[in-house]
């Protein structure tokens, strides 16, 4: 590890450790949720990162369709890949919380249903990619699909949970457009959100670099043959 270049990675590790400690020892509990309030500091950032990842994927898909450069497809694919992982983490962590509060891992609450549909939509994105062999057609089809898939994200992540009756705790920005959260909780929450976002950007950069290197190597091998 090169300290001159990698100092921020160590800082991020320390920062996230601080967030975990603060989530357990500094942030107060909400009355209705008890100790499980602390899940909020990890579960919501996962959902946030997933949304951000799908937005980045759609943006790079538009760029790919406009400029037809392979690197944009690599960014779109990598972002969707990480987005799907964070969606799975948000779904499973939500189900564990539901077992404690609702006494069932899964009960088709609007939140659970909408995230499940989102999972299926993005799983289909990868199924589509793996079904097309030609690189150009695969990238073009995937770009179109990613844009269409992202249209559903605001609806499934923000609109559905706000218009249907749900057992899920009030979203952070509720129907009144106000953040009803204790100051200490808010501090830990936004720190966690920041930490998760930086971690996501780091993972995304790594994934894109790997993908571009793989493609470069493959094309070199093909031209040598």
């Amino acid at each position, binding site marked *: 590890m090169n300290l001159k270049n990698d100092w921020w990675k160590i800082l991020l590790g320390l920062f996230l450790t601080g967030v975990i400690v603060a989530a357990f020892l500094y942030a107060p509990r909400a009355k*209705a949720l008890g100790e*499980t309030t602390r899940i909020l500091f990890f579960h919501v950032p996962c959902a946030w990162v997933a949304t951000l990842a799908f937005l980045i994927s759609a943006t790079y898909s538009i760029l790919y369709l406009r400029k037809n450069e392979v690197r944009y497809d690599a960014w779109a694919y990598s972002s969707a890949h990480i987005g799907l992982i964070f969606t799975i983490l948000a779904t499973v962590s939500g189900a*564990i919380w539901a077992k404690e509060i609702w006494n069932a891992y899964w009960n088709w609450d609007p939140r659970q249903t909408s995230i499940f549909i989102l999972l299926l939509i993005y799983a289909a994105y990868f199924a589509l990619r793996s079904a097309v062999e030609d690189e150009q057609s695969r990238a073009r089809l995937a770009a179109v699909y990613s844009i269409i898939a992202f249209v559903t994200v605001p609806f499934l992540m923000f609109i559905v949970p706000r218009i249907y009756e749900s057992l899920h705790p009030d979203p952070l920005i509720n129907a009144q457009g106000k953040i009803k959260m204790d100051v200490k909780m808010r501090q830990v929450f936004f720190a966690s959100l920041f930490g998760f976002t930086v971690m996501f950007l780091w993972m995304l950069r790594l994934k894109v670099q790997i993908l571009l290197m793989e493609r470069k190597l493959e094309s070199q091998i093909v031209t040598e043959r």
Partner: protein
Amino acid sequence: MRKLMTLAAIAADTTLTQMSQSMPEKKAGENIYIVLAVTVLIFGGVFFYLLYLDKKVNRLKKKVESREE
């Protein structure tokens, strides 16, 4: 006999009431292990994803090295 039975019933009822009052009530949301499980799941998930990326980088390094040779 009837009086004895009534007394026994009252005694049993009082004991049960006292027992239920002294027993800690299990409230939903008070299980800290659930929070721990979620924290481990999320950071474990991120850790394994980073391991997967690390494995890919190493495989690419080997490929590049073998090509250079």
